[in-house]
């Protein structure tokens, strides 16, 4: 039923669902852009506590970059018809994703124990809020990875256009939240 439009005339080579995903990413990007500018404006107003980012955030960065790599590996294995590495790397990516969330959580705990509280100086509040909203988006990505795993293990292995397309959607989103984190880290470091 929902496929009613999938056979309509296509005026673009990009699959509509993929395009819709990009549009959604544009929207999420605006959200972080607005938070970043609010951050800059508030920082410029003074009374702004400077502190070092917890080292867990750097570990998170490594974890999520790794997960993007493994997910890409899983994808290339998939299109090359290699079932085992496809599944293996997919599972690894999933756990790396979870690892990212855990590591972020540890980062927040470190901050908290340093006395950086959500309620205190706005520089802390901003940090918590921005990283939290990002983690929420990562959790969305983890849910996508879960569905991808479901497809991988519940369906018989077969390389079809449709499955390739669906996997690509998951990939794009995951790489996107990964990039978003890298952006956030750089922003928080240098602003």
């Amino acid at each position: 039923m929902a496929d009613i439009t999938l056979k309509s005339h296509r005026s673009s080579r990009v699959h509509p669902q993929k395009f819709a995903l990009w549009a959604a990413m544009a929207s999420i990007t605006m959200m972080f852009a607005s938070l970043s500018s609010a951050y800059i404006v508030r920082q410029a107003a003074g009374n702004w506590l400077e502190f070092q980012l917890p080292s867990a955030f750097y570990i998170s960065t490594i974890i999520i970059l790794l997960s993007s790599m493994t997910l890409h590996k899983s994808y290339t294995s998939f299109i090359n018809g290699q079932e085992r590495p496809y599944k293996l790397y997919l599972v690894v990516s999933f756990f790396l994703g979870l690892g990212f969330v855990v590591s972020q959580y540890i980062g927040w705990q470190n901050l908290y124990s340093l006395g950086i509280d959500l309620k205190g100086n706005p520089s802390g509040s901003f940090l918590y809020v921005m990283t939290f909203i990002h983690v929420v988006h990562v959790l969305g990505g983890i849910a996508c990875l879960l569905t991808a795993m479901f497809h991988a293990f519940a369906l018989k292995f077969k390389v079809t256009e449709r499955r390739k397309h669906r996997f690509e959607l998951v990939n794009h989103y995951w790489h996107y939240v990964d990039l978003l984190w890298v952006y956030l880290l750089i922003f928080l470091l240098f602003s």
Partner: protein
Amino acid sequence: MADIITVDRDDVLLKKEGFDDHFHDHHHEDKYKSNFISHYIFSMDHKMIARQFLITGMLWAIIGAGMSIIFRLQLGFPDESLAWLKPLLGKWITINTETGMGSLQPEFYYALVTMHGTIIVFFVLTAGLSGTFSNLLIPLQLGARDMASPFLNMLSYWFFFMASVVMFYSLFLSTGPFSGGWTAYPPLSALPQASMGSGTGMTLWTISLVLFVVSVLLGGINYITTVLNLRTKGMTFWRMPLTIWAFFVTAILGLLSFPVLASGFFLLMCDRGLGTSFYLSEIFIQGSALDFAGGSPVLYQHLFWFLGHPEVYIIILPAMGLVSEVMAVHARKPIFGYKFMVYSILAIGFLSFIVWAHHMFMSGVNPFISNFFVVFTLIIAVPSAIKVFNWIATLYKGDLRLNTPMLFSIGFVSMFISGGLTGVFLGNSAIDIQQHDTYFVVAHFHIVMGIAAFFGMFAGVYHWYPKMFGRFMNETLGKIHFWATLIGAYAIFWPMHYLGLAGVPRRYYRFDSFDAFGSFGEMNMFITIAAIVVFFAQLLMVINFFYSMYYGKKMTTKNPWGATTLEWTTPIKAGHGNWPGKLPTVHRWPYDYGKDGKDFISQLEPMAEGETEAH
């Protein structure tokens, strides 16, 4: 007779030239018809979703307008008893036991004003207008079977519905709905104890609007994707009707600005519930100091107006698109300056992102930064003026059919000029020192956005009603509706300019207690009476709408207006999928009216030998 020939011609062209997507191989249609719930309620058919948006929007419009009548009564007749409203408003009317005089509680006055603004801006003029017509027309005018994702499209409506339910519920809270203005500035919105409506009322207001943002985003993603991906064969960008251009840019504006509002709300929620100080600084309330330190309410204003200004264009652009289309059809002339219309839409869309601080000239933003915003604000007048010029040029020497949709289109232009001009006053930060937060602003935005957008919507409803319901609305009632609304709206809002110039502030509960404003009693009375008349004229439209659904004149030909665009090539009662057989193939732009001696040439018609395509 001529009609019958063109109908046949359409079908011949569809068969011969159409794009075959093997739609008829799957019987979507039958599956849909068979089930009441999936057909009328959880429908994924964009045409049904459009009607759902429209009818929900109409219900909200009645509620929102009704609220304005109540607070206008207060302003126009501050000394009259409102005891008769007690059955409706209950405890919000207090009755003086000695005199028997019933008066509206000031808190509830603010709640009414706030709800009126929120409802009309978001639920009626965003969801009811762009939700309805983007849904109806994007697939139909582009030659698509449906939206890119019918499922997300359905969700978009249901998120709007949920937002509606939450907001509606908040009207009945014992502490009343939110009452801090439709812009929800902190601290009234951030401190639950700040006013009666700031507690649960505000919580529900935020929940409702977050649901609403989700609805807009889901809808917008779909509209954009559909326009980019599902145009039928031959439907290049330069062959899209101006309606589609307008909806497309509107959707982009929404997609880029609503997330900013969402993050603004998110910070607001943290301030409300988690004790952060994004927007709150040192505050004393009921004699004691709160913990908040160092926040700034101006930060909220930036985030709000970064959405807020694009939002006003999200409201007006679809109306502009509808008006352009209706006007070309009923003037039997190509729209004047099609490409300039498109470039103006794009320019307005772009500029709308860099003018937001003109709402904040008086909020203590740096005057040098204000200048930047003054310049861009005034530049918006240029594409706006181009559009106005083109509409008037389209009318010039046209073979005008002065039916209801056309009258509303012309009325739109009138309103847009009147209200746009006062925008140019307000856009000067020096003049705004005097005008800000006065009735001048109220007059400005009600004329340019409120009434103009309603006129665009009415033009659209009267024009596409046959497409939606297979019948026509009553012309006589329509014309009465138009003239009463046109004259009545000017009667309401024109005097407000004078009030504003005299410095009468907006959002006050009564004026007779101020020496400076005491002399405007009669003017306020006049405004209120005009508002009541206009309100009843709208009920005429509502009656016409529902009556015509069952008893209106039946549509007997597919293309009653003699329009060139694709929506009129579908069967009168089109099923899900719109065209029963092949999809149309497009050969020309949508404004071939009166070309080569022909009344109109459908977009389906291939170019004749030696014919050149108009633009």
